[in-house]
């Protein structure tokens, strides 16, 4: 087994290869989820408090003792649901979203079982019960340490449940379909189309000078008739539009 990949035997004889999400990706997803659930829980607490007692905390002098209906309503309608949102965010969403959470989706990861399938409800619940150990002694110290030292970069909960967090390259799948369409409908060399798509996907990550240079080089191959000196005067954003136009079905070569 490669350190960062797992291979799973399949009935077709062609192995499934999955890329394991490392500690950094896991932490990133967790931090996103942590903020989402914290904001949701606090928002519910605030709204529930305003709806039941009119302010954030019940005041015994104003609302009576805790036996008073207002304080009980505050506990049941404001505090309890916000605690539930915070505590059940991961297990409920991982079951409902088939091994994903909003945070995992944003960083393109998903949970799988040892056979590459969606984990069972039982496995997801066990994984989350063991958060009690992973969270020790503070800030997920045990869990984080395990992700550094285990071969599959998993925490204790994953070890117990037999789950693995893997990369889920949905964007790549979209590009595969796009590439298939383009291959069917354009007259360009697929390898060149792949380079052009790579450039468009990474457009915002590149400096203006660099994307301009690569765009001109790609355009000279997409449009053999184009003059290099003519393209030199084009603004990179215009070059981007011209590449898109050249890739469109039926574009002249």
């Amino acid at each position, binding site marked *: 087994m490669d350190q960062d990949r797992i291979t*799973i035997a*399949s*009935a*077709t*004889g*062609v192995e*499934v*290869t*999955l890329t394991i999400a490392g500690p950094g990706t896991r932490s990133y997803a967790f931090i996103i989820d942590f903020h989402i659930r914290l904001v949701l829980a606090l928002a519910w607490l605030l709204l529930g408090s305003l709806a039941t007692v009119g302010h954030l905390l019940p005041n015994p002098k104003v609302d009576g*003792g*805790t*036996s008073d209906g207002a304080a*009980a309503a505050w*506990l*049941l309608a404001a505090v*309890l649901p916000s605690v539930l949102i915070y505590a059940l965010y991961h297990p409920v969403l991982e079951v409902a979203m*088939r091994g994903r959470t909003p945070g995992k989706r944003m960083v393109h990861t998903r949970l*799988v079982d040892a*056979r*590459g*399938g*969606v984990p069972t409800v*039982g496995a997801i*619940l*066990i994984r989350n*019960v*063991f958060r*009690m*150990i992973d969270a020790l002694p503070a800030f997920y110290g045990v869990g984080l340490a395990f992700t550094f030292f285990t071969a599959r970069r998993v925490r*204790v909960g994953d*070890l*117990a*449940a*037999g789950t693995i967090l*893997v990369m*889920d*390259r*949905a964007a*790549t*799948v979209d*590009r*595969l*379909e796009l*590439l*298939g*369409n383009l*291959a*069917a409908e354009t007259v360009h*060399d*697929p*390898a060149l189309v*792949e380079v052009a*798509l*790579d450039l468009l996907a990474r457009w915002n990550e590149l400096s203006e000078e660099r994307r301009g240079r690569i765009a001109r080089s790609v355009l000279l191959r997409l449009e053999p008739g184009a003059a290099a000196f003519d393209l030199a005067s084009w603004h990179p954003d215009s070059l981007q539009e011209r590449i898109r136009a050249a890739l469109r079905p039926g574009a002249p070569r």
Partner: protein
Amino acid sequence: MNSTSTARGWLLARAPLWRGLAASAAEARARTLGFDRAGALLVGYRRLARDLASARRQWPGGTITTALESVYGTYHALVNRPPRNTRAALLQMLRSDVPAGFRSIQQPLRWIVLLMVLSTGAGWWLVTAYPTLVGLIASEDMIRHVERGELWTDGLLNVTPSSVLSIRIFSNNIVVSLMAFCSGIFYGLGTAYMISLNGVMLGAMLAFTHQHGLDTRLLTFIAAHGPVELSLICIAGAAGAALGDSLMHPGPAGRLASFQERVSGLKGLLGVLCVLLVGCGLIEGYVSPDDGYPVAARIAIGAAWWFIMWTALTGRLYGRPQTRRSLRIAA
């Protein structure tokens, strides 16, 4: 596929298949595929495997290969997805998995009960011999109540409504039980610590109330919920001890496999345990603090709940199918 034209031809030929597979993925996820479409999906899956093998050979690490890997992984999960039959799976769990899990922890359960009894005795002895030690176990408020000749639970319903009390109690009990189970990962030592601590606390409070002549009232208070609550904490502890044992004596399959197998065998038992603890919390919130319930009624409720717990853990509550052994005995 050495030349560009061959590559283009290959892509041209495969593009419709990939487009078709992408479209049917959504249908397959929603489990709305008809028989024909499901058959077509299987054929597509095999073709996709062939394409991936070709792409791996021709363009290792390329965009097309990476994308095909991803699609293939998704389809592998879809094709190998187990059938969904929630009711049957739930019945299987309640009738077979839970009793099997419960049977598998009988030996550690005996040790855990012994540990609980011994630590309760130790707590009793400590507080009897050194009465000031109760300050380590009980809060100042509880001590003041008992010294005044009252239980800290007296008038509890005037302070906290039953619903809130129940939720607070069962949440706490579930967390304690799950922690007793999970801490078994420290080779059972975490579980032993938690059970001992709970036993010492119980013994200390019994001794403290005995010194002030309130022990009968305390036993009356816990009569309805206590038997099941303590039993369930011991069972969770035994499950934790079994977890520790799976790490200490892993067998030929290895430590990780042994640990995973043990967790998998006990997860149903833990689920039932949590449900029963919710019941205990409701009894403790609604029945135990209510002086309107006589002692006999409390004992009857405690005994009935314990009986339900026993039948749930042995599978009899759900009509457990007869085993070969029971059939042999019947014959």
